[in-house]
């Protein structure tokens, strides 16, 4: 943290996806994929990560932009968050993602930060970022869950040696939309449901996603099934700009005759992965979006929450956000 001076590294700036994949494979764990750079450069400056080679993806124009497909839309992983926020196609059909993108960091950061980078970024647990040798950094303790630890921003659910949370604002929206993550490596392409893309510490404590070192997230597909549903996104943070969520909620609803036919509700910043609230979704089916349903959903959402010393406020906050998502007819952005 105090070093704040980058080490030297080889810089590659491929203009072609296949070339990039070759480089990524060649360097493996010694390589680093650089998109907007807002996560990467912090790590480099603090010398917390010191790759031999940085593969700058900026020149891969094929991975930029929002395209309509036969079954929804496909967003290049290098599309900037500003473009996601402003895309008429996304605003029209998938306002949930556009709203989530609009609440990422600051306007300046969104101009350079990418959708792929936003979902792949590392956790913001301050101990881990500070550079202590915690489990996630390869050590054998969790500083954030220790007695006296300052853990106001940490997890309510899913702690497993690590209590860090997902920092991404767009990830809960993508999970709520049942997005598909398109991943390529030199062997080919595979598609991973967004819900399975994020890595729980109980599986691999040193990774935030399932991506292997040779993998590149190339695009994200949003299925037509959720287009033009009723959406709700809200992020609560200490500041309106350049801040990570204390809790966020992304929800999508389809209703007919006043009743909920389908619901998708996901919370951010309460667990290491976007927390999909399957039980809440199940209990919502067939109900109307009223105060009573909202209260039931809120109560269900926080069941089994296990707070740390300084984050029990997240329990009522999460409950309130889920209630707001359920009772609101209009998309409201925080």
């Amino acid at each position, binding site marked *: *943290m*105090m*070093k*704040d*001076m*980058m*080490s*030297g590294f080889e810089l590659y700036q491929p203009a072609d996806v296949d070339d990039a994949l070759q480089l990524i494979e060649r360097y493996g764990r010694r390589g680093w994929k650089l998109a907007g750079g807002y996560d990467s450069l912090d790590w480099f*400056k*603090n*010398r917390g990560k010191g790759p031999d080679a940085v593969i700058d993806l900026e020149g891969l124009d094929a991975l930029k932009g929002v395209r309509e497909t036969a079954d929804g839309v496909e967003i290049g992983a290098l599309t900037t968050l500003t473009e996601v926020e402003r895309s008429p196609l996304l605003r029209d059909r998938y306002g949930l993602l556009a709203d989530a993108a609009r609440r990422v960091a*600051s306007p300046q950061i969104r101009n350079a930060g990418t959708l792929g980078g936003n979902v792949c970024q590392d956790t913001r647990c*301050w*101990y881990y970022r*500070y550079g*202590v040798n915690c489990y996630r950094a390869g050590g054998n303790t969790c*500083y954030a869950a*220790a*007695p*006296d*630890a*300052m853990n*106001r921003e940490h997890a309510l659910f899913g702690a497993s040696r690590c209590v860090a949370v997902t920092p991404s604002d767009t990830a809960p929206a993508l999970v709520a939309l049942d997005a598909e993550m398109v991943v390529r490596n030199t062997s080919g392409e595979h598609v991973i449901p967004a819900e399975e893309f994020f890595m729980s510490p109980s599986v691999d404590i040193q990774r935030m996603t399932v991506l292997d070192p040779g993998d590149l997230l190339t695009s994200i597909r949003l299925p037509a099934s959720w287009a033009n549903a009723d959406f709700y996104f*809200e992020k*609560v*943070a*200490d*500041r*309106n*700009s*350049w*801040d*990570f969520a*204390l809790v966020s909620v992304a929800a999508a609803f389809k209703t007919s005759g006043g009743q909920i036919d389908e619901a998708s509700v996901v919370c951010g910043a309460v667990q290491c992965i976007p927390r999909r609230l399957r039980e809440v979704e199940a209990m919502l089916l067939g109900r109307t979006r009223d105060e009573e349903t909202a209260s039931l959903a809120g109560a269900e959402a926080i069941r089994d929450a296990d707070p740390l*010393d*300084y*984050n*029990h*406020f*997240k329990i*009522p*906050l999460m409950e*309130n*956000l889920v*209630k*707001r998502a359920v009772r609101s007819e209009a998309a409201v952005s*925080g």
Partner: protein
Amino acid sequence: MADLLGKDYAPPDVYGKVTGRAKYAEDFRMDGMLFCRLLKSPMPHCRVRGVDASAALAMEGVVAILRADEVPEQAGPANNILTDEPHFVGEPILAVAAVTETIAQNAIEAIVLDLEPLPFCVDPLESLRPDGPNARTDGNTVSSGEVQEHKWTEADFEAAGEGQLPMGEPGAEWSYGDIDAGFAEASIILDETFVTAGTSHHSMEPRTAMAYWENGKCYLHASTQSQSFVHPGIAAYIGIEPENLVYIAEYCGGGFGSKGGPYPLLSIPAHMSRKVQRPVLMRISRAEEYFLGSARPGFQGRIKMGFRDDGRITAVDVYIVQENGPNQGGGDMGAAASAISIVYTPLNMRYRGMSVLTNTPPRGAQRGPGQNQIATAVEPLIDKAAKQLGLDQVAIRHINAPTHDSLYGGNRGPITSAYMREALEQGAERFGWEERRARSGQREGSKVRGVGVGQAFHSAGSSGFDGLLVITPEGKLNIHSGVGNLGTYSYATTSRVAAEVLKCRWENCEIVRGDSSRGLPWTLGQFGSNTSFTMTRTNFAAANDAVRKLKEIAARRLGGSATDYDIGNETVFARGNPSRRLTYAQAAQAAIEMGGAYSGHEPPEDINALTRRAVEVVAGTGLVGVARDNLERNGMVPALAAGFVEIELDLETGRIEILDYLGVADCGTVLHPQGLATQIKGGGVMGFGMAVSERHVYDRHWGLPAAVGFYQAKPPSYLDVPSEMDWHAVDQPDPGNPVGSKGIGEPVMGCSGAALLCAISDALGGHYFNRTPVMADMIINVASERSQSHGPLQVNTQ
């Protein structure tokens, strides 16, 4: 023609700033320049037992290492230059110079340190316990500038009620009146424990410095608020006489108090440059600032206040435990108590304080040091009393507000003027207080309205410094300013007084500043809200000296006596016969020819040695006006401010939206409306940050800081405050200043923070947090009837 005061203008350095041409310390480069990086302590308190730098020194491009024993040792508790016993995480142990910064940092990575961990402390109360840790090996408190050891007894701690501040033997105290009699007279008494956070300074420009040596002189480019005031201290850090230092600080990217005086860090490149005989640049990064920059002292306090039925405060008994960092720190606690004495004019008062050392960043003055912490702590409690007494929040402040004959501090000294009542009256009228107060508590869904009014104070003026100017043979007026360029433009605005007195066109003036080799007078630093008062006086004095000399020169050259002459249109002319005149250019030429005092060859006796050297620089270049400010000053100069705020608070999310803000200043006569507006609004934003978002968090087990980046420490952004904010000034002249001016920079922060906290408590129906900052989690906990995660006296948690 003149008539410059009270009008907007474009200060000359604005163009450089907006075009990017302004050169800050980091922008200078020299041939053969090396880069220097610091090896900083990873521990909150340790002893360096050994340093193995062999691998580092063997690296290509590494030139030298500078250790603590090669720089002047600073007697504790002063801040160190380098040290082998670091007292905080990030304290510089040694410096490495190399041909690039990357190599310098690589070398630092290759240095093997043998460190002995020592006891440390990040909570003052813990240190005051009988068996508590000491932040320094020689003690745990600072009293009268000396490190001492103070421990309170178990009985002291037990005597305090649950969650209340224990009050053992104090390190400082004063009182006036009879507080027991005062409390006996009170209808209600509040006894409240509070905590205020010690926030980082957040100056945008880090404390970078570049130095080189030429002909035995050290040339130093650095970032300071002040110019001449820091000069002797910097020379001492470097170990040279002031005349051997050329100090260049044309621009300062913010200081907020942290760069008001000299600080030891900026001497490191000078020492390294002397060692390696090459120019050396030491860039400090934004992240490093959070470690080795500085922070405001935090308070753990307790205040007992007695109120009469009409709201008048009969007695105050305040005890402040100050978290002072590991070193000399600040005098905030005493300043806070003095602020209480003047903002609320309690009839009887006692102050006690204890400044406790902690192994956290060095503390120092931050905008409203003491005054603003106490404003955020006490103002909500004034509302609590008002609620109990059924009084309006403005009315209870009005009845306690100072008037011109109020007395200040424990010494009960006089003040020059006070228009707080007018500020409250005019502010309430302009803000529509009555109407907004009627909306208070209104619900719309989960959102509830709240209003708040806040007050703050800072002493805002000094005297006895020097002014210097030169009328050149070209007829130009060069106004030499030694005050510094913090960014408020007051260096320029106060210079306009000289132009006004000499009836010069502003376009015909140049402000000479930013480089000590150009001849800059001794003036007070640019801090403490004092520039507008202090430097209008020095420029007034120097300009009057020039007017006197102009008239004398005219009399000598054109006949008659000096009293026959007057000035106008940049000429000195005979009153009865305006054609008998000298232009300023002619008079300047005459001054050079006449020599002596006129040309600066015989400066007055009573000026400072630094001004004397400045006069030597300009002597013989024109008509030299130079004088010490010997004008009368009868009392402390109070800057007072009131803030009014309306908010909407979301009970489900804890989020606050500031709907409107009005800041009102009592700063004497307004000199520069645009500059004042910027101070009121900018200070307002900083106050909002202090109240609800800026964090100072430590892991007490490891002594590690959590808030070490803008995104973690959370000063407010543009998107957190209203895009339009209103301002107003009482605009009544202060009798202690020749142009009626007094300063204002600091209280305009405290009043906004206090007003916002009052509005939050108002929206929550009278819940008082007794703590800053009030973050979203705390509001959510109150709204959902949960307990707070932190204890009432816990520090460094938010």
